């Protein structure tokens, strides 16, 4: 039975960077050759979520949401737009498997560590895992706390905390949340889009990737979603789903 992998992303009407990592991960996954076809689909770009399943030649399709949180998009928008009825759906002769989002996979913690190390974090550094969060959906914070907890257990850094863009504990309080002299903030975001590239550095007054406060420094890492290792996380999620019956 031919197998297809669909990477479902958010996309943007205003920012071409939003979908770029999803396409790049698709390229990496095509090169692995595990799936007969690897496609991308987006909520706000083309090809759209609502038409991608019909475009797949394979009759066994696995959808991996390239989202951090398990919230509004993964529970409401994607299932509605793609006509999914649960983790396994049967549609027009196709078996469709729908996995948890990349943000729920434990291997993502290793990508967070990589991003922190790239930004110069060491054993004395405090690492802030920065999530979007929203007070409108309590589910949206869950994976951020989960990943921050995994990074803390790995023991590479002096301290680890979860902070958020749009809810408490807020990123602006990061110097109170972590008491190390050096802090690295790792955005748990998929893309180098509006938030990571513009709004967060502006809100935090981070110039040239670094913020100084008295004798303390905060450095801003690249987002986890653009790291090539994320393709492995997607592959792990899809491979685990292959055993579902």
């Amino acid at each position, binding site marked *: 039975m031919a197998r297809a992998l669909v990477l479902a992303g958010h*996309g*943007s*009407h*205003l*920012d*071409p960077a939003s979908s*770029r990592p999803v*396409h790049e991960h698709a390229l990496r996954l095509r090169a692995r050759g595990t799936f007969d076809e690897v496609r991308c689909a987006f*909520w*706000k*770009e*083309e*090809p*759209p979520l*609502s*038409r991608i399943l*019909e*475009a797949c030649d394979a009759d066994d399709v696995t959808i991996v949401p390239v989202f951090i949180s398990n919230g*509004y998009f993964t529970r*409401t*928008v994607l299932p*509605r737009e793609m006509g999914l009825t649960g983790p396994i759906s049967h549609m027009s002769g196709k078996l469709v498997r729908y996995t948890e989002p990349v943000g729920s996979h434990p291997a993502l913690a290793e990508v967070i560590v990589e991003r922190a190390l790239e930004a110069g974090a060491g054993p004395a550094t405090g690492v802030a895992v920065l999530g979007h969060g929203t007070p409108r959906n309590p589910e949206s914070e869950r994976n951020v706390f989960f990943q921050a907890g995994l990074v803390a257990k790995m023991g590479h850094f002096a301290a680890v905390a979860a902070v958020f863009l749009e809810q408490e504990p807020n990123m602006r309080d990061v110097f109170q949340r972590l008491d190390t002299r050096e802090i690295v903030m790792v955005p748990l975001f998929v893309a180098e889009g509006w938030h990571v590239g513009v709004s967060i550095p502006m809100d935090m007054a981070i110039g040239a990737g670094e913020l100084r406060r008295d004798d303390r420094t905060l450095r801003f890492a690249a987002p986890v979603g653009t790291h090539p290792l994320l393709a492995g996380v997607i592959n792990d999620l899809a491979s685990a789903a292959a055993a579902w019956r």
Partner: protein
Amino acid sequence: MRIEAAIAARTSFRLGEIEVRFDGPVAVVSGPPGGDTAPVEVSLEVLREFVRADDHGRYRPLPGARTLPHGWEVRCASAGELRTAIDEVYPLALQHISQHERGDLRVVALDDVLQRQSGRYALAAGLSGKGREAACRALCSRCVRTPSWQEGTLPEEAIPCPEACSVLIALCREAALWESSPPAPSPANPTLPFAQFEAPGNEVREAYLAAHFAAPPPGPVQHRPARRR
């Protein structure tokens, strides 16, 4: 199967703003002509990124928008590469053309698309019929695809659009807000982001406002008071 037949027979064809011709064993996909200068050769690997910006570097969130950059071509060594190139420029267009020609294209009405929206886009379903017509005129007239969800027969060369896209949904949302509080028109500024409909001067916004809120022609029925413009 018009396009597939042309690919199999290796005969030139036009699709939206691109042209395909055959040069020996190679299929050449060209963007709109760029004047007197020779077209820039673009590789298949970078084509998707290349066509995501117009001649002015402005992001193209609607791949079908008639704003493809001018003066480029891609050389494809096989029919498979040619299909990939077309799909990078117009995602799913080949599938939708084939499905339309076979009679099994799944078409979804605009109202069904708007009614199923939630969150910030739930407002879109509140747009009036007149507003929906104006939104389609303002946006879809800028796209190479032809809505299959509107009445009428598609022209033979059409790229069918089976379902309202997310850009049209976003426009309907903004337009629904404008119906209760019509904004003042501004001169159209084609350098503003294509889908930033809340920005005065956005060309699609201004086209919509001109179509929807212009003084109606003389007649007994007025849908809303005429605005001073």
